[in-house]
């Protein structure tokens, strides 16, 4: 009996090649998308689980509240915290501090001379806190020497062309360092991105340099590993006492008026990726976005399953005679249900095999786009294999049950006489399924549009700067010599240095007083020409002018220079207009020689400056954050804290020759350091990598959903056109023209899509409204995007069914009527 069923199933499959192909293709595309989404979500949820004993490893998170505009939440602390913790908490086995962000050090060997983006300064115990497999040497002790570096296998190949260059020497920022160990590459689900680990003990390491920053300089990531058996939550409970005793006194001494309050939280190693805070070594993932992605995966499978149901029932009439005969010779309904369910499973099984092949084919591209190294070892990965089969079988059973019930319910007498095959109920269910498919599709299209619009807005309008043809050349520090040499180049329109704070690369705050009021604001040292390069024009007053020596802090010495403020600052002062702010005296903490390393010096004396200009709010930061009240002044260019980047506006017609000319100036003045320059818009793009990935991802999913839905609609239209041959014949006999019939068919296929719009629009509105809430500066949900997505769905649907509708509408009525 089973053989008979299988024969019927397979012959039915081959006889209806087009339908079968479409059914299987739809399912396979859906499954493949679901597999990839599943792999991605699992990858994101399993960060750092490869670390042995990861349950005992924590990163210290710091939250600061007080008289500051926004509470601070960061995964960085002072450099001293590790030692302080170790003294007070005997349950700590090892600690390690890391600095991986900031400006990449220049690493050089032979002809290779690059700013190494994957460089991490680390304490010697880092590989005891987070053990990794060694390729050569002993990572656990390798960073003890101050001139030691540990390379990943990729790092070793990059610089030495071999896997174990123990004893090899790299020049790091001009200092020789020896390779003491090589580790396996970190998996892509590590929150660290490290190819070169330099010993923190080096005198020039970022940890040594910034580590003297004092109680408010939170720049290093502090990791602890607890002794076996020790409990993180127990230690967590003791941290408030520790903060009160060891931390707050120093803070209150350094910032007596800001009423700061610090809270330390032990963040489990495996939660770092999902509970992001500023200062993380890799961009994290948003659990809510991941949930959204998982939902999309489920929706795609749903769309594919709906297709399956639609196509299986649509073809029911073709199987009617088979059902009639089987029933006439004694088959019970149960037998037929088993038969048709079995058939559904055959389809699903074929689709799964195709899907696995598809997923394997596409995965390398997905990995490249997502910057991941996700593996798809379905044969050795038992949970993966099991869940794939379970999902496929589940879809097969659920999607198979309805067609099986419909098909098995045919009354043999009726179908054998060739009577009506099905009532309106079946058609209504199919309409409903088409509505559901297109609702998913419209929602995805709308989401894609909104994410795209927000990203463009965030990159262009939300920053309120003109970054067109602006190049950022990183230099530590950016000096007048460099600036003037670049300004002298023929293709350069203007140039000015800036501090990292001016380009939103980190920030720093000051406490100011004006008219007896106390305010906490941001500040940023800038250079002459900085505003002009970015097209920032004064709303009131003036910008800094080189012709006024009093504007230049390098010349004013102990006297505070005048300041320019932004609009937020004016609002914070409670003034009605930019004009009103001009001439106001601001008392602030002017440091003639502002260096981060000297931050632990007593707070500088207060000095008074006049506001000489007001500029619009602008930012190089993320549109997610509000632009804070900020004042600007021209600082002495002492180090990378006051002056780190040269901003160069190019003549658009001479870009090609100007860029090499800039590089030549750099080579002449830098003393052999690698050139690191970016176009300003690229620099900004780094803030939106995750948004771009989300957008691209949803766009791809929308495309998949569109193609599956179109496959289904295409087959459905073929079926419908066929089923309605008689009706169309009658209408034509009554005088309907081909055009009338075409209009009728197209209108009937448009209806479910229009209903789908009504379903999708509110859902998409809620989802996108929620997503946009994450941005302080955001686009409106434009009505045109809703209309456009609906129109696109209608056009897609009509284009899909047009071929069949056209063919049927042209058919001669006599053929149609004879069909009856």
């Amino acid at each position, binding site marked *: 009996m089973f053989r008979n069923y299988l024969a019927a199933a397979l012959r039915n499959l081959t006889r209806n090649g087009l339908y079968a192909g479409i059914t299987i293709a739809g399912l396979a595309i859906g499954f493949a998308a679901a597999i990839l989404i599943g792999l991605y979500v699992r990858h994101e949820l399993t960060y750092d689980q490869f670390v042995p004993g990861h349950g005992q490893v924590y990163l210290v998170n710091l939250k600061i509240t007080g008289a500051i505009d926004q509470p601070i939440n960061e995964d960085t602390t002072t450099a001293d915290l590790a030692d302080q913790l170790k003294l007070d908490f005997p349950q700590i086995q090892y600690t390690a501090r890391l600095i991986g962000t900031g400006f990449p050090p220049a690493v050089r060997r032979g002809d290779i001379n690059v700013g190494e983006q994957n460089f991490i300064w680390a304490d010697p115990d880092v590989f005891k806190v987070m053990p990794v497999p060694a390729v050569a040497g002993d990572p656990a002790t390798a960073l003890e020497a101050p001139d030691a570096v540990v390379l990943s296998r990729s790092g070793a190949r990059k610089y030495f062309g071999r896997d174990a260059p123990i004893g090899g020497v790299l020049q790091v920022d001009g200092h020789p360092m020896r390779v003491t160990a090589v580790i396996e590459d970190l998996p892509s689900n590590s929150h660290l991105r490290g190819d070169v680990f330099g010993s923190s003990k080096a005198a020039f390491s970022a940890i040594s340099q910034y580590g003297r920053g004092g109680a408010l300089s939170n720049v290093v990531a502090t990791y602890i590993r607890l002794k076996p058996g020790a409990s993180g939550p127990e230690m967590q409970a003791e941290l408030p006492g520790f903060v009160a005793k060891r931390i707050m006194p120093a803070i209150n001494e350094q910032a007596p008026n800001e009423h700061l309050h610090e809270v330390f939280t032990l963040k489990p190693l495996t939660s770092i990726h999902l509970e992001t805070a500023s200062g993380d070594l890799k961009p994290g993932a948003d659990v809510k976005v991941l949930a959204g992605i998982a939902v999309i995966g489920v929706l795609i499978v749903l769309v594919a399953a709906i297709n399956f149901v639609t196509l299986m029932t649509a073809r029911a009439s073709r199987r009617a005679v088979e059902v009639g005969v089987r029933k006439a010779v004694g088959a019970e309904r149960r037998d037929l249900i088993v038969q048709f369910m079995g058939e559904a499973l055959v389809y699903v099984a074929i689709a799964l095999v195709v899907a696995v092949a598809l997923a394997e084919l596409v995965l390398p591209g997905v990995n490249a786009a997502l910057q991941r190294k996700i593996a798809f070892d379905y044969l050795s990965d038992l949970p993966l294999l099991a869940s794939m089969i379970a999902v496929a079988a589940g879809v097969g059973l659920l999607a198979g049950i309805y067609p099986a019930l419909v098909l098995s319910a045919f009354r043999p007498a009726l179908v054998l006489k060739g009577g009506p095959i099905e009532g309106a109920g079946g058609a209504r269910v199919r309409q409903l399924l088409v509505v559901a498919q297109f609702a998913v599709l419209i929602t995805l299209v709308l989401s894609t549009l909104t994410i795209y619009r927000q990203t463009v807005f965030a990159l262009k309008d939300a920053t309120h700067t003109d970054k067109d043809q602006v190049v950022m050349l990183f230099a530590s520090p950016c000096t007048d010599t460099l600036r003037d040499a670049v300004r002298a180049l023929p293709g350069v329109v203007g140039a000015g240095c800036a501090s990292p704070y001016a380009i939103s690369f980190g920030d720093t705050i000051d406490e100011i007083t004006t008219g007896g009021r106390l305010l906490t604001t941001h500040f940023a040292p800038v250079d002459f020409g900085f505003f002009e390069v970015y097209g920032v024009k004064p709303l009131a007053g003036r910008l800094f002018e080189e012709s006024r020596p009093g504007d230049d802090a390098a010349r004013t010495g102990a006297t505070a220079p005048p300041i320019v403020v932004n609009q937020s600052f004016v609002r914070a002062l409670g003034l009605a207009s930019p004009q009103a702010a001009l001439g106001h005296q601001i008392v602030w903490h002017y440091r003639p020689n502002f260096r981060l390393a000297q931050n632990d010096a007593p707070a500088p004396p207060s000095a008074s400056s006049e506001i000489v200009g007001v500029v619009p709010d602008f930012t190089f930061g993320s549109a997610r954050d509000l632009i804070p009240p900020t004042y600007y002044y021209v600082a002495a260019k002492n180090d990378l804290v006051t002056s780190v980047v040269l901003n160069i506006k190019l003549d658009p017609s001479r870009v090609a020759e100007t860029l090499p000319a800039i590089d030549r100036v750099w080579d002449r003045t830098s003393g052999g350091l690698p050139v690191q320059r970016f176009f300003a818009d690229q620099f900004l793009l780094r803030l939106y990598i995750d948004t771009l990935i989300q957008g691209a991802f949803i766009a791809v999913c929308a495309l998949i959903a569109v193609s599956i839905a179109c496959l289904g609609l295409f087959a459905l239209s073929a079926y419908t056109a066929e089923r309605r041959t008689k009706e169309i*014949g009658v209408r034509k006999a009554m*005088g309907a023209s081909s055009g009338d019939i075409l209009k009728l068919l197209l209108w009937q296929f448009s209806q479910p899509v229009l209903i789908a719009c009504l379903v999708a629009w509110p859902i998409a509105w809620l989802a996108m409204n929620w997503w946009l809430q994450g941005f302080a500066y955001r686009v409106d949900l434009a009505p045109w995007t809703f209309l456009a997505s609906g129109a696109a769905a209608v056009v897609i649907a009509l284009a899909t069914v047009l071929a069949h509708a056209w063919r049927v509408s042209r058919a001669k009525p*006599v053929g149609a009527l004879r069909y009856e």
Partner: protein
Amino acid sequence: MLKLEHVSKVYRTSEVETLALSDVSLEIGGGEFVAIMGPSGCGKSTLMNLLGLLDSPSEGAYWFFGEDVARYSEARLTGLRRDRIGFVFQSFNLIDDLTVAENVEVALLYRKVPGPERKRRVREALERVGIAHRASHRPQQLSGGQQQRVAVARALVSEPKLILADEPTGNLDTANGEAVMALLSDAAKAGVTVVMVTHSLTQAASAHRTIKLLDGRVVAETLLAA
């Protein structure tokens, strides 16, 4: 009114060529009621399709109300059909998804008759065939006789010059058959040309003239008392 001159119709498939009509010439006057008879496969339906402009002859000329339509395009045939012809089929050919009234209305839909007038004419046509009380039912809810009366109403509602009835009583019992025949006779009396295919001699007797077909040829014509 209707005039066929040496009309032939050949159906071709990739393997077989079937001569459905062969050199048929005949003339049907205005207001005439003609019955076409003959065994299965003799070409009755083909003749009806040609007369009804649902198909075109392979050879010969067809003068339809003074125009030779044998080589007309599908679009022009559609236009003529819309304006001049009403159909009654053996299998009723009602659209299952539409109500009785909507089925009748289909015949007016493509004639650009304004909505209110459409409603009035549909009601009148349904009253004429005695089925107005079932106007909002679906075809499946009616008996065969009732369904055929709806089909006749659909043929009458557009006030055609020509009604083509392909075995209109073939699926009906005697009483219902007679009722449908009476409706067709009334139409002919009102000046409509009626061409009907039938197997029943009794019903053929209601016609003015019978034409007998055999193997695609006209073999006999009998004039009955009008």
